[in-house]
């Protein structure tokens, strides 16, 4: 690359208590490049980003902007230098409307708010992303994908020279990702330096110009994308070979656990029909906003359906609360771990035992910590949760490790029916295999599993059958041998696929 570097990070270290999050790492960003940063969960990627935006101060090392050292004490200063970031966990202001959320950082510049213009501009920014949202609505209760979109809009609305994206695509589906990448390419053409973090290898190799890999807070390698293969990048990340993507082993299809007939909750979804057997993984595919999560919420009693029938273990049931669903042996692992999944200030250990805490009491009703610790230790090893101790507050774990804690917590309740919503969101390739293996084992033990995922390779590898939804409609159910990238995408975006639609009609 001939141009001068735009941003240089030199020998930056950062320690949190006993955890060495970053150990003298360096990274150089050139104008007009997309630089991918890879690493396992807890490798220190998000920490580096928070140092680049002034949220954390490095213990040592320096940051140079166009050759001049700069010091960043808060994110306002970083923004002044043209450095903006989309953080891993979307953090919106629930009481502000969407337009305000997008332009919150612009307010320093104009002391008066012109609402009409604000709304129009917000709509324009969102249109660039290929989506529309009611920009006057409050951001409270926004689905995760919409939150992430607002974060992206927020970042691109700023006049940036360095744009950092920490897993921006983790809860987006192909359509949104395509729009985002088109935008990223435009920014690249305009000379913006982009740091891109993702655990989805195909995305990294589609968009990146150069790839840097961290492991355990240390720099491992940096190379132009042409000289890297996914295999090599993964080997650098995890320090060992990882075979191909794990594929679910066929398991005997048992009794019908769950049977859903003509389930509707307007306007979110309508006329959903399927059967779920013991030992089966039913994938729920579709684009963001197709209503997949809404179906899960209805089954779990959070937002019950208005019409239709649910049969569970052969009996018709009406589920009105999560508590009732849990008592029946259902478990729902939600996608938004910060809002629904974890008690952030509580220890990792206590989070895992929370839903099944009555199994940990002694005869006096006191919680036995050594038992909790044993369980937590079991999951830490099985899912390789990276933490310095089991009593670490969940909020301080890295994003992917938080996700593993959420999974552990619910798996530990030993359910009959498991509903997973984006189970591997933000989980690195190595651990993803572990999660997939675990799902496979659970299915072999006879659990019925409903798996929502926007990660198409994951859906294809793990599902026995795939139900595709589009705008609240069931587009069809594909048997494993019929499900391919093409057929599922075609159904998800609404191109007519003869056979599966017929099949849906059969169920109705």
């Amino acid at each position, binding site marked *: 690359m001939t141009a001068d570097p735009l941003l240089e990070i030199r020998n930056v270290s950062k320690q949190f208590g006993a955890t060495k999050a970053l150990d003298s790492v360096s990274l150089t960003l050139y104008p007009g490049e997309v630089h991918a940063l890879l690493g396992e969960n807890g490798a220190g990627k998000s920490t580096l980003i928070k140092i680049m*935006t002034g949220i954390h101060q490095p213990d040592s090392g320096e940051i140079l902007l166009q050759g001049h050292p700069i010091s960043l004490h808060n994110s*306002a200063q*970083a923004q002044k230098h043209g450095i903006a970031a989309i953080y891993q966990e979307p953090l919106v*202001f629930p009481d502000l409307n*969407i337009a*305000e959320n997008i332009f919150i950082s612009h307010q320093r510049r104009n002391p008066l*708010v012109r609402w009409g213009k604000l709304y129009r501009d917000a709509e324009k920014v969102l249109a660039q992303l290929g*989506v529309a949202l009611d920009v006057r609505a409050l951001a409270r209760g926004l*689905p995760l994908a919409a939150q992430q979109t607002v974060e992206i809009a927020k970042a691109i609305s700023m006049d940036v020279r360095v744009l950092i994206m920490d897993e921006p695509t983790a809860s987006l589906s192909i359509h949104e990702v395509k729009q985002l990448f088109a935008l990223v390419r435009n920014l690249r053409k305009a000379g913006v330096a982009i740091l891109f973090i993702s655990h989805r290898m195909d995305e990294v190799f589609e968009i990146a110009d150069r790839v840097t890999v961290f492991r355990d807070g240390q720099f491992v390698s940096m190379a132009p994308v042409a000289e890297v293969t996914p295999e090599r990048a993964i080997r650098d990340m995890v320090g060992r070979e990882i075979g191909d993507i794990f594929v679910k082993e066929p398991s005997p299809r048992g009794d019908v656990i769950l049977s859903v007939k003509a389930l509707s909750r307007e306007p979110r979804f309508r006329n959903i029909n399927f059967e779920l057997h013991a030992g089966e993984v039913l994938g729920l595919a579709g684009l963001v906003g197709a209503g997949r999560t809404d179906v899960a919420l209805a089954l779990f009693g959070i937002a019950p359906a208005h019409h239709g029938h649910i049969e569970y273990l052969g009996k018709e049931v009406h589920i009105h609360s999560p508590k009732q669903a849990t008592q029946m042996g259902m478990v729902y692992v939600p996608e938004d771990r910060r809002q629904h999944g974890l008690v952030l200030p509580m220890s990792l250990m206590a989070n895992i035992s929370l839903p099944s805490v009555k199994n940990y009491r002694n005869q006096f009703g006191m919680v036995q910590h050594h038992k909790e610790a044993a369980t937590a230790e079991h999951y830490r090893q099985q899912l390789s949760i990276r933490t310095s101790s089991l009593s670490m507050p969940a909020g301080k774990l890295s994003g992917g490790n938080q996700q593993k804690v959420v999974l552990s917590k619910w798996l530990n309740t030993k359910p009959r029916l498991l509903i997973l919503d984006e189970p591997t969101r933000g989980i690195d390739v190595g651990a993803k295999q572990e999660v997939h293996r675990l799902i496979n084992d659970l299915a072999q033990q006879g659990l019925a599993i409903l798996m929502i995922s926007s990660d198409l390779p994951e859906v294809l590898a793990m599902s026995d059958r795939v139900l595709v939804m589009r705008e609240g409609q069931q587009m069809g159910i594909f048997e494993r041998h019929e499900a391919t990238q093409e057929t599922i995408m075609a159904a998800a975006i609404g191109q007519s696929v003869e056979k599966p639609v017929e099949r849906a009609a059969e169920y109705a």
Partner: protein
Amino acid sequence: MRRVRRLVPLQRLRELSLVLILIIVIVIFGNQIDNYYTPRTFNRISSTVALITLVAVGQTLVLLTRNVDLSVGSMVGFTAYYLGRHLSKTEDMSPMVLAAMAMGIGGAMGLINGLLVAYGRIPAIVVTLGTMAIYRGALVRYSDSKSVATRELPPWIKDLPQETLYKFGEYELRALPGIALGAVIIFFFILLYSSFGRRLYAIGSSPEAAHLAGIHAPRMVTLAFTLCGALSGLGGMVYLARFGTITVEAGRGLELQVVAAAVVGGVSITGGSGTVLGAMLGAILIGTLEQSLIRMQINEFWKDAVMGLCIIVAVSVDRILINQLTPWWSRTELQRMPEEPHAEV
């Protein structure tokens, strides 16, 4: 329906529901009390409301940032006493200068609160519980436990409550409610249209997100407390004009009425939402309840209990309404743009 939703934000709806509750309350009292619909009742209620409103506007600013100021009653008392003492010694003093002085004294006390909360990182409830006692203590010390008597005051301040700004029929808008209304209007616009106001909402709504967005929260919080102090100072002047006699007990218990007014008016205790318009409506409801219950000559104990009950009812009705309406009011799913991005608007 869509147009209505676009034009009427949920907050307005909430205020409308409060107006409705208020009308019901007034009708009930009108049936129970003879000669209720008279200018005299109106004036009585409106001067009580004026004080609560003024301080509730300040309290709203603080509540929005997810803090609370319990020292407002003491600040009102201290300022009222100080101004009274000062007026009893100096003959000539223009109302404007007196108002500036009131806001200066209150603002200084508010600044202390703000600095301790924002930069000392001590929870607001702890700080202001402390300063509530300290400011009250300062008043006792400064006054030597003596009172300011009405006869010591110059006539203009005693006549201020009777000053009429605007007449509509038999009813009139007098100076004290006028001051409060002025404050409401000013802060309504500040909160809606200034970036300072919007950032107060942001801080209270999600301190974490505010930090990531580069909002300098301590400065905003300090400013909010200072303004709250200044408005309480002005409240002290209103208090002086209204009652004339100022003892060391002046303004005690006001903080609870003020917080109640704000909360009844839809200002969230956990920050981030609410308006001064709501706080004013809350103050009107509280003031009306209090004065009307006094008129009914219910005994003190029952009065407080009825008042408490009414507050709980008002807040619950509001909650239920809002919970029922919210799903209709906001459609926040992600919508995919049609292929032609500008085809439909």
